[in-house]
């Protein structure tokens, strides 16, 4: 159930992990496509929040190459649709998310990522 819209917002929250903690890298991924009702206006409003480069890199690592390398100045409807597909319809069901900074692995099982930290990793 991890959609890329959420993944694009998620950074590592281990103590003192402030460098390279975003985006988390996917591995051993089991991908499921679930159609979702289109809401292009929401996507359009969400654009400024997105980290485009991280999104495109992640989408490519998951085998989706519909997005352009750089963020277009103004989105056409087709581009918004492609973006909707990537953000809202691609669900990662199984796999791991690894922080490139500290190497912490967040396992995803049954669509639920385990974000629990060990006690020594909790920030103060």
């Amino acid at each position: 159930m991890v959609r890329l819209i959420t993944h694009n917002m998620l950074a590592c929250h281990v103590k003192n992990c402030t460098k390279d903690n975003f985006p988390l890298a996917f591995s051993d991924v089991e991908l499921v496509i679930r159609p979702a009702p289109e809401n292009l206006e929401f996507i359009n409003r969400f654009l400024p929040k997105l980290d485009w480069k991280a999104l495109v890199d992640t989408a490519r690592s998951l085998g989706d190459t519909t997005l352009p390398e750089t963020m277009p100045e103004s989105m056409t409807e087709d581009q918004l649709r492609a973006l909707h597909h990537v953000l809202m319809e691609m669900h990662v069901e199984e796999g791991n998310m690894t922080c490139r900074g500290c190497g912490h692995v967040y396992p995803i099982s049954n669509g639920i990522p385990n974000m629990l930290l060990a006690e020594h990793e909790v920030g103060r």
Partner: protein
Amino acid sequence: MSRPEEISPPEIFYGDTEAHKYTANTRIKSIQSQMTQRALELLALPEDETAFVLDIGCGSGLSGELLDEEGHVWVGCDIAPSMLEVALEREVEGDLFLQDIGQGFGFRPGTFDGAISISVIQWLLNADSNTHSPPQRLARFFTTLHSCLRNPSRAVFQFYPSSDDQVQMITTAAQRAGFGGGLVVDYPNSKKARKMYLCLMVGQQEVPKALDGEEMDLDEENSYGLEKRREEIRNERRRRKDSSASGKKGKKGKKDINAKEWIMKKKDLYRARGKEGVPTDSKYTARKRKVYF
């Protein structure tokens, strides 16, 4: 009534049986949805717009369902795996996370348009292991939440405090993290319907009004924590003013009354009360004794 917080940690209390019971119980369901509705009202998201909302302690997604109906995109997190499993079975739309909110969130700054939480944050006040320190966990929770909310936005928490100290602890932790806002107490005079909402704000906003049940002016009750604090401040100001007015004499109220006046006043008071054996007044009353040495 027993409080689940006092029985066991949340991830254990909401095990498989309790999680199913919780979700199947129609009474809990209706109360939960009422509270969610009210929380959404307090959240005051812009109408007819899809928002990105965080549901803290989403459990089996009872409140998430309402968010779905409103058309919002949401992310939920909970510490009880069994509850999340039930949420999966119910096929809610939001993304679910297994997360301990006392460990903080890892979301990027400005991610969410709002956050709601129904009957959750009182759990943060428990220390379930020897490494847990409630103030620290509260601080971590509120600071990370503050940073992942958009400016301006709101976070609404419905919670069941067991004492005023708990309320105090939670509100001060939230204020330290930079939140504005305060408590909204719905139906303050009813034992059953009384509900507490902590309405926190990022950026400058006004605290919403509470529901009274009857049309009475219970304004003081509305934000009673805030009001109490305000009164304390008022009292302290008055005290300070008094002490500065009386100058260096120290104690207030005794500045322009001499010994004789004071004694006469006391005698009058005793007589008025009907005390026996109050000495009669004479020219010797309150006169200073001769110094013999």
